[in-house]
C-alpha cells in the first residue's frame, strides 16, 4: 500500500541515513534558547523535506513546528532555508544532497513564530494593501452582460505574473529587504507589473508611482537578482522589475 507520509515500500532495501539539522527556538517561551537539533533518519525513495519533517514530527519529536499546507508547491507555505538557500521544502528532494546533511532554518526577514515557522500572512496582506493589489476600474461591471474581450496573449501574459504564490522566498533572497524592513520586494513589484499590464486596470503610471515610486518600492531594488534566481515559480522578476523601473523614472 502507498503511504505518502511514511512511504513504506514493500521491498526490503537498505537506505542511506541522512542527517537533518533544524533551528529550534520558541520565542513564546522565555526559558528556551535558540539551538540546533539534529535528527538522523532513513531516506526512503523519492523522499522530500515534507515527508522527512512529517516523519520527524510524528515519530521522533512531536514538538517541532513547521508549516505545510498543499505539499505540492502550490500554496507557498513551506518556504525555509535549506543549506543556505530559501526554497519550498515540499518540492525539495533529500536525494539532492550528496553528503546527506541538510540544515533547515526559518525564512529570514519574516517574524519568527517557532522553529521553522514564520509569519508570512500578515506581511503579505500588508504588502497587498500597500501596492493596492486589485483592479482599479472607474465603471462598475454588469455581471449579467458578456464579459469584456481580452486579447488571448495579453491574458496569458497577465496569468504568467499572477502565478506568484507569496511564498516569501524572493524576500529572503533579497539584500535590500534584509536591510530595509519596509521594502515591498519582488513580490510587490511583480504585483504592480501584473496590474499594469492587465487591461481591466485603469491605473496610470502616475498612480503606480504613488505606490512604488520610492526607496521602499522600485527604487529600492539594487538588481542583485536573488529574487529571480530563487523564485520557485520561475517568474520573470528581472524583466518585470526593469519594466516598472523604466516606467517609473519617466515620471
Amino acid at each position, binding site marked *: 500500500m*502507498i503511504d505518502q507520509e511514511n512511504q513504506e515500500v514493500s521491498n526490503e532495501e537498505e537506505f542511506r541515513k541522512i542527517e537533518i539539522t533544524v533551528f529550534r527556538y520558541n520565542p513564546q517561551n522565555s526559558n528556551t534558547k535558540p539551538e540546533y537539533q539534529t535528527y538522523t533518519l532513513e531516506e526512503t525513495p523519492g523522499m522530500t523535506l515534507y515527508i522527512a519533517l512529517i516523519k520527524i514530527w510524528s515519530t521522533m519529536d512531536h514538538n517541532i513546528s513547521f508549516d505545510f499546507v498543499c505539499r505540492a508547491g502550490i500554496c507557498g507555505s513551506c518556504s525555509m532555508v535549506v543549506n543556505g538557500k530559501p526554497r519550498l521544502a515540499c518540492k525539495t528532494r533529500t536525494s539532492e544532497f550528496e553528503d546527506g546533511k541538510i540544515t533547515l532554518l526559518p525564512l529570514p526577514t519574516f517574524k519568527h513564530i517557532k522553529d521553522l515557522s514564520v509569519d508570512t500572512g500578515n506581511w503579505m496582506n500588508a504588502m497587498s494593501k500597500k501596492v493596492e*493589489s486589485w483592479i482599479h476600474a472607474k465603471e462598475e461591471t454588469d455581471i449579467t452582460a*458578456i*464579459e469584456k474581450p*481580452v486579447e488571448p496573449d495579453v491574458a496569458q501574459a497577465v496569468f504568467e505574473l499572477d502565478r506568484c504564490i507569496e511564498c516569501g522566498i524572493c524576500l529572503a533572497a533579497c539584500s535590500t529587504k534584509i536591510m530595509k524592513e519596509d521594502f515591498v520586494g519582488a513580490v510587490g513589484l511583480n504585483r504592480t507589473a501584473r496590474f499594469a499590464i492587465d487591461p481591466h486596470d485603469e491605473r496610470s503610471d502616475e498612480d503606480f508611482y504613488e505606490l512604488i515610486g520610492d526607496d521602499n518600492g522600485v527604487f529600492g531594488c539594487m538588481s542583485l537578482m536573488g529574487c529571480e534566481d530563487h523564485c520557485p515559480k520561475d517568474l520573470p522578476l528581472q524583466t518585470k522589475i526593469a519594466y516598472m523601473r523604466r516606467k517609473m523614472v519617466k515620471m
Partner: protein
Amino acid sequence: MKIVYTDALIVGGGLAGLRSAIATREKGLDTIVISMVPVKRSHSAAAQGGMQASLGNAVMGEGDNEDVHFADTVKGSDWGCDQNVARMFVTTAPKAIRELAAWGVPWNRIGKGPREVIINGEKETIVEKDEAHGLINARDFGGTKKWRTCYTSDATGHTMLYAVANEALRRNVEIHDKKEAISIIHENGICGGVVARDLISGELIAYIAKGTMIATGGYGRIYKQSTNAIICKGVGVAIALETGIVQLGNMEAVQFHPTPIVPSGILLTEGCRGDGGVLRDKDGYRFMPDYEPEKKELASRDVVSRRMIEHIRKGKGVKSPYGDHLWLDISILGREHIEKNLHDVQDISKTFNGIDPADEGEKGWMPVLPMQHYSMGGIRVKPTGESTTMKGLFCSGEAACWDLHGFNRLGGNSVSEAVVAGMIVGEYFASYCKETHLTTNTFTIQKFLEVQKAYLQEILSYDGGKNIFDIKDRMRIIMQEKVGVFRNGKDLSDAVDELEDLLKMVKEITVTDKALCINPELNEAYRVTKMLKLALCVSKGALERTESRGAHFREDYTKRDDENWLNRTITTWTDPNDTMPTLSYEEIDISKMEMPPAFRGYGKKGAIMSNPLSEIREEEITKIKETLGKVDRFTTQEALLDFDLPKEYKRKNERMGVGYD
C-alpha cells in the same frame, strides 16, 4: 477572558469564506475572517482544472446554458442533489465568472480561427468564431455535455483565490490568521460565535458576532490517501457536529478522484483528460472506451474511479513498490500545449516523479490511482446557507451540504460552488447579520471558554502512554481500506467498530509537551478526536446506506435504489459522551423535481431500482409543458421548479449570439 465582537464572523479563508466576507462588507458590516493559515494558502488555491459556468463562448460550448449545466449537475449527483440549489447555482455561475473576470482573474481567452485539439485521442481542428475572439474560453471536463470549464492554465483555484482575497483586503475585511475555531458558542438554538485558539500564543479567544459562517472546506485527511491539503481535517464541520444540534448531511458521499499521482497523492487535474489525455494499463492499452463507450475517460469521477479499480482487479494494473497503478498519458497533447495549459501538472510530475509528461510515448506516462478528493457531505443547510437546526449559523463551500453535489460532484463545480455560494449564501448571511442583534450574554461566553480551557487541560492530563499519531494513522488506514471506492457491509461494520474503539482510546494518550501555547502535538490531539467523529459519521452512514449512488458504491448492494434510498443521510452527535453518531434521513421529494430520477447516461446500465413516483412526475412534467404551449425556456423552468435567489443574481445572463434568451 478575551472577547472580540464583530458583525459578521467567518471561519475559513478560502474562496467561499472570502467571497462571503465581501458580501458582508458590501452591506457595511464589520467582518472578521479567522483562518488556520494565511488565507491565500487555503486549499482553494490547489484547484487546478477550472470552474464550470455556462457561458457558451467557445465553439464546443455553443448552445450551452443554465438548463444544460443544471441537467449535467443533477445527473452527476446521481439525483442526490437539491434541484432547487442546483438551479440557484447554475443561474449565478455565469455572473460569478464575469465578476471574477472584472476582478482580474486572467481567464484563458478564445483566439478566433482554427486551432488543433485532441478529442478522443485524435487530432481535430475546430474553428472559433470571430465574435468570440477575446471572450472566456472553456475546456472539456468529465460528465458535461458541453465544453464548459473555464480556466487559467492549471492554476485556476490559485488565480481565483488571489483575486477574491485581494478584493477582500481592498474592502478591509479583517483577517486573523493562525487562529483555529475549536467550538461553537450557542444559546437557545442560536449561534453566537466561536471559541478560537490562537495557534501561536495558545490563547483562547471568544469571537462574538451577529452571524457566524463556517467555510472550512472538506475532511479528506481522514483518509490515508487524499489529494487534500494537510489542513483539510474537517475541524469546522466537526465543531458544528459537536454542538449536538447542528446536522451534517450525506457524510458518506466521498469523492475519489481518478488521477492523483502515485505515490505522493498530489492531484493531476481532470483538465489532463479534458484536454484529451487518456488512461492506459500495464500493456499501454487505452481501456476506458471498453467500459464507457460514450464518455470514455470523461465519464463522471465516481464512474471513472470505479472502472480503474475494476481494471486493476482484473490484473491490468502496473506493479510498483507502492502497489498497483495505471498510467495517465498526456504526451499526445504535445509539448507546447502542456507547457502552456498544463504547466503545474508538468512541474508536479517532474519534481515528484522525475517524469516529464511532454516526453513522447511511455517515457512521459504518469502513474495514477484514484484517491480521496472531495467531501460532498458537510453541514446540512437550507438553500439560504443557514443551518437547518441552528439559527445564525451559516455554512458555504465544501464544508456545507447545501446540497449541490448529491452523491457525486462534477469536476469544475467545486471552485464554482465556492464562489457562487460565497455570493448567494454570503448575501443571505449578510442580510441576516444586518437584521439581528447580539444576544449572547457574557455568562454564556465565559461558560464556553471555560469548557474549552478545561478540555485542553484534560487532554494534557491524559497519561495512558498511547500516541495520538498512531491513532491517526490507524484511522486513516481503516478509512482507506474499508470505506473506500468499493464498500461492503462487513468491512464497513468493522470500520465502525474499530473507529469507535479508537475514539475511546484517545483518552489513553500522553502528550509529551504540556505547553498550552504553540504545541503541534496538542493541536493534533484535539484535531484527531474531531476527525474520528467525522470518520464515524462517514462509515456509519455508508454502512446504513444499502444501495449504490454516485460515489457511494456498495458491492453488496450494487443498484441505485430510488424507492428506499432517495434521501439524505442526516447525522448528529446528540450527547458529548456518545461514541457513535445518531442517524436519520431526510426525504428528497420527487414530486417537486424538475428532473425526476433516470439513467445518468454513463456508468453501469440497468443498475437502478426506480421509484414509481419518477414516472408520475415525468408525466406531470409533460402535461405542464403541454399546457404551457410555446413559451420561452424560463417560463417552462419556473413552472417546473420555482426557486428563490437574491434579485441581483436571478437576472438573466447574456450570451453570444442569443442575447438574454
